[in-house]
């Protein structure tokens, strides 16, 4: 029974335009480097092509090396990789009137877990300076940096804590967003509400991109940003109804249904409500900052456990330099598989055919990514000129249980052991916005 071997493998192997991925990567990497070299002397502000059309964008060149036994994390291995997180984005905005504008963001990405294409496409209507309505393909604002996750220049690390930012189920949605911002006395406030849906061919669980027929309907949520002086509090709640079929579970689920084990088949179904709660707190002054974010994901899906993740960070500004230290943690409840097939495992002679099915079921269940990971990151950022920064991050990562999903064994069928699921990730990066 080989259903399971694809469990933790990444999906996309063909780049956009149908080019083999390796070829696409090389082309994109050269494009990024060429652009990077060509523009250093150019003005750093966004280009106003005409009075109505404005083009801005950003570029990231990120190199990484993972020191870990036979594992990869977020696409990094024990060899220098430049393509996992390097990207280029071009964002034209066309102002139809003073109040109405259309924005598209095209993203060229060379990482194995992502595809290039239109990441944002929306219309914005500014009713006044307080109310704003957006409609189209938008980013899911689960956390503080979720909707600027590709804009490395907007945050201090090279990779925001993957316990939160790589664990997200989906990065975008289609629908609308209403935003209100104002200030009251010494308080500032921004409240945003959204409604929409997500249909796509993958979901992210435990840092792993999984092939899926993903449908999240009736999705709604809000996020509130409250500021006072140097403090900022962010509260967010998002919920939706999942009707998702995970590719690697489908053959097994069908086999279980056909054999009459509906209870076991049901434990592999991804149907039901899903809610994400998050709280973020930030303190910042001229010489440093402290920040924390906490998130809890609750689902009624048997195999997708309730997960709690958070990070705490502190940073210090020294001239053009930022030094920061982050501690991040993700814990989860691992749900139990159905025991209806247990007798066939205990005594395979009852029915050898079903014993094989039962073995496949338990094997697969054990390998569904659950996302338990602890990490410490020490990093530095140097803002060496306007709109550009160089970064260096060193992260020590440790999974809290086997098959958490972050560490991918070189041999997908190898038995994982949490004790060896550790590694040190070294990353350097160049960030540019224009």
């Amino acid at each position, binding site marked *: 029974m080989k259903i399971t071997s694809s469990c933790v493998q990444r999906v996309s192997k063909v780049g956009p335009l149908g080019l083999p991925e390796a070829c696409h990567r090389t082309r994109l990497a050269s494009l990024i480097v060429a652009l990077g070299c060509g523009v250093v002397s150019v003005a750093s*502000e*966004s280009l106003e092509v005409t009075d109505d059309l404005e083009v*801005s964008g*950003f570029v990231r060149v990120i190199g990484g090396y993972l020191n870990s036994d036979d594992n990869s994390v977020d696409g990094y291995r024990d060899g220098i990789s430049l393509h996992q997180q390097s990207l280029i984005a071009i964002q034209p905005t066309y102002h139809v009137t003073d109040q109405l504008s259309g*924005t598209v*963001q095209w993203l060229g990405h060379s990482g194995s877990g992502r595809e290039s294409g239109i990441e*944002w496409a*929306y219309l*914005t209507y500014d009713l*006044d*300076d*307080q109310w*704003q309505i*957006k409609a189209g393909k938008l980013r899911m604002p689960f956390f503080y940096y979720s*909707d*600027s996750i*590709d*804009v490395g*220049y*907007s*945050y201090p690390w090279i990779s925001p804590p993957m316990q939160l930012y790589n664990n997200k189920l989906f990065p975008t949605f289609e629908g609308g967003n209403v*935003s209100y*911002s*104002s*200030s009251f*006395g*010494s308080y*500032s406030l*921004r409240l945003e509400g959204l409604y929409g849906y997500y249909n796509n061919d993958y979901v992210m669980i435990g840092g792993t991109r999984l092939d899926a027929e993903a449908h999240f309907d009736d999705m709604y949520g809000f996020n509130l940003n409250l*500021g006072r*002086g*140097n*403090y900022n509090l962010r509260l967010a709640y998002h919920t939706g109804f999942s009707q998702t079929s995970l590719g690697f579970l489908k053959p097994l689920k069908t086999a279980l249904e056909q054999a009459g084990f509906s209870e076991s088949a049901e434990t592999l179904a991804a149907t039901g409500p899903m809610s994400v709660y998050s709280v973020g*707190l930030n*303190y*910042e*002054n*001229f*010489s*440093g900052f*402290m920040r*924390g974010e*906490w998130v809890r994901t609750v689902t009624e899906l048997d195999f997708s456990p309730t997960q709690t993740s958070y990070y*705490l960070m*502190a*940073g*210090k*500004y020294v001239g053009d330099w*930022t030094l920061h*230290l982050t*501690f991040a*943690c993700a*814990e989860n409840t691992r749900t139990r598989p159905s025991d209806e097939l247990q007798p066939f495992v205990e005594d395979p002679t009852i029915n050898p055919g079903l014993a094989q099915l039962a073995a496949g079921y338990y094997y697969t269940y054990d390998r569904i990514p659950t996302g338990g990971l*602890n990490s*410490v990151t020490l990093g530095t950022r140097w*803002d060496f000129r*306007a*709109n550009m*920064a160089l970064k260096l991050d060193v992260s020590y990562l440790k999974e809290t249980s086997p098959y958490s999903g972050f560490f991918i064994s070189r041999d997908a069928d190898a038995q994982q052991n949490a004790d060896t699921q550790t590694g040190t990730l070294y990353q350097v990066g160049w960030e540019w*916005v224009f």
Partner: protein
Amino acid sequence: MMTFLIFLTSRMPVRRCGGLALLLASVLLAPVASADGTLLVIANLGADQKITLSREQVRNLFMGIPVGESLTPVVLTADNKARAGFNTRVIGMAEARIQSYWAQMKFTGRKTPPAEFRSEAELIEFVQKTPGSIGYVSASTKLPDNLQVVYEDAR
């Protein structure tokens, strides 16, 4: 600030994470540096409209948060001394941090950063011509009659 840390750490499962979280507490924040010279925040308002803003209101306004008055902020380019003083004393953030804040605002489609002017003279000229605009200059700069000082930061 310590309250913030204690609040956060008290909610964490200490078993795995607590010891390291305490390390963060050892990073202490130093006192704020300041640049000299009085700054004036000037606005082009109607002749009969008189307002004064608090430091907090000025900060919010220049960070893209409306304060109830219909005002459009404009700023000086990063090589101006008055901008450095304004960043330090009113916004309370360094230049690079302000730029990264605006990158986030811009690329999430929320707000666009204020228009920039190369010199105080150019900024004053624009504010003078544009009703509802608001900017900052150093106190030594001569102001035209139709501009109103809505906030003064004296050091």
